[in-house]
């Protein structure tokens, strides 16, 4: 070292004793967003932990689960009776339970998602303004009906039985599809899900790109988490928005540079290991009878629930 330690470092000018004063520290909005992005890592570890469990779905082959997912989503889309949809929900919750996963937080999130993107989107269809039908709940009565553009506003406005079935039907379709997707995600390592897509003849190069992208999300989340801690460790007071903007701009530039370097490193690593433009991805073991049986059982139960209403009628006659 060339120079002596500066005089100010030889004195201790930080306050030794803490005197509490009111006032809360506020982190900038963008900063809070960055912190939440960093939480992706935790979510990833949780997924890895549940996927490594020893429940029924975890022990099922990834290809069987992927095929079941495709089959079931189509089945849910084609099923009209609400009773069947409700049985589907019960079936999926049973599969969650058999896999030893605490499904309540997952189901709650799925429920909110399905409510917004299923029920609320279709909610107007409950009114007889959009879908004709038998009114089960009268909301308003006008002096006469009106014609506005292509819509007829009837004299009696209310919620119809048919519209209610449409709204709830869409809610259950979204809920069941997302619940099954969650079940597959939480019981299958992500890499296995990607590899299983090969049964649908998805090109290896595309699978490699998806895998790299998934891994990069983790690398990026790590960087974001580190950056957040770095900033937090030096944040003494609330930052002015101008200061925040300056810092965030610097961080974005840094991440861009880092991403660019990472692309080059990954490409060089692939080249160093013999990559010349043609990808060979390791395959699965052979599909066994047990795997086929597993699929048939899972799909068979789903199919039975699809026909539950006509089956019930036949049995009760």
């Amino acid at each position, binding site marked *: 070292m060339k120079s002596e330690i500066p005089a100010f470092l030889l004195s201790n000018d930080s306050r030794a004793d803490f005197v509490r004063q009111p006032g809360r520290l506020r982190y900038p909005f963008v900063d809070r967003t960055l912190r939440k992005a960093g939480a992706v890592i935790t979510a990833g570890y949780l997924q890895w932990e549940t996927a490594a469990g020893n429940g029924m779905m975890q022990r099922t082959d990834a290809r069987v689960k992927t095929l079941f997912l495709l089959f079931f989503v189509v089945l849910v889309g084609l099923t009209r009776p609400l009773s069947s949809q409700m049985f589907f929900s019960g079936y999926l919750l049973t599969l969650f339970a058999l896999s030893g996963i605490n499904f309540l937080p997952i189901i709650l999130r799925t429920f909110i998602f399905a409510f917004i993107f299923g029920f609320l989107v279709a909610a107007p269809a409950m009114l007889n303004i959009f879908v004709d039908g038998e009114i089960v709940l009268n909301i308003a009565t006008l002096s006469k009906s009106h014609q506005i553009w292509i819509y007829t506003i009837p004299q009696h406005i209310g919620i119809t039985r048919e519209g209610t079935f449409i709204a709830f039907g869409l809610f259950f379709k979204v809920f069941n599809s997302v619940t099954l997707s969650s079940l597959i995600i939480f019981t299958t390592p992500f890499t296995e899900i990607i590899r299983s897509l090969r049964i649908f003849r998805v090109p290896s190069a595309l699978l490699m790109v998806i895998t790299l992208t998934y891994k990069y999300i983790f690398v990026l989340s790590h960087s974001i988490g580190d950056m957040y801690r*770095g900033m937090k*460790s*030096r944040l003494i007071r609330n930052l002015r928005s101008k200061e925040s903007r300056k*810092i965030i701009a610097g961080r974005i530039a840094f991440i861009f540079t880092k991403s660019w370097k990472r692309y080059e490193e990954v490409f060089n690593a692939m080249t160093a290991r013999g990559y010349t433009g043609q990808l060979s991805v390791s395959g699965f073991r052979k599909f066994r009878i047990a795997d086929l049986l597993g699929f048939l059982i899972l799909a068979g139960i789903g199919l039975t629930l699809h026909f539950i209403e006509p089956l019930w009628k036949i049995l009760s006659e």
Partner: protein
Amino acid sequence: MEDIIRIAQVSFQYTKQQPALVDIDFSVKKGEIFAILGSNGSGKSTLLNIIGGLTYPTTGQYFFQGNEVSADALKNKSFNAWFRENLGFIFQNPDSQLFCPTVMDELLFGPLQLGKSQAEATQRTDEVLEMLELTHLSARSSHTLSSGEKKRVAIGAILTMNPSVLIIDEPMAGLDPKSQSYITELLIRLNEAGKTIIISTHSLALADYLKPRIAVLSEEHRLVRTGLAEEILPDTDFLTGVNLIHAHLHRHGKELHKHIHPQFLFHRHDGE
């Protein structure tokens, strides 16, 4: 010497299957050099993050100068300011820490936040730049620097705040031998100037140079021993047990053999 840091029965887990620290209990005294030793994945960085108020214990308590440090406590503006100005954290990867447009801005950031005048902040920055031999790089952006230069900027960015405690995660990570000896000398001199220094490392050589009081973490994430460097470093059986030294294959002339060869045995004084 009085305790400046107290870690009381602290445990931390990322998920149920991933404990990072189990029942850690120790104190750091004011003005000492304290090293947390452990193999990779033993929980050193997590423990430093807790001491730095960046992560919070799952169970147990952490006290800084008798005040409990917790997520809630750090939401208080005055406590956060007091804690951060007293305790400077230098990250293993300097890229995480450097977020200002230029080296000069990095060093100015801390003192300006502390409410120092522009003149005083600039004077501090100039002095630290000179001490760390970074003056010629002051207008450069930190991402264009070498690893050793970035590390020095990261240290400088904390030193301009003049904290009483310096926490350094793996001070030698990614540095060439010249930068390593530079950092070692700097740490010794800062400690002589009265700073409490806490480092995490798996480098026995660094522990031998600094002669700190040591806390050793096991691969099971537990604190297995605390003591002076002079007591712990010669205990090869213990160090082997915590995976800090191991038998390795090497040559003596033409002879190839394998035995425990602790790195710190290479430490020789001039003329020996």
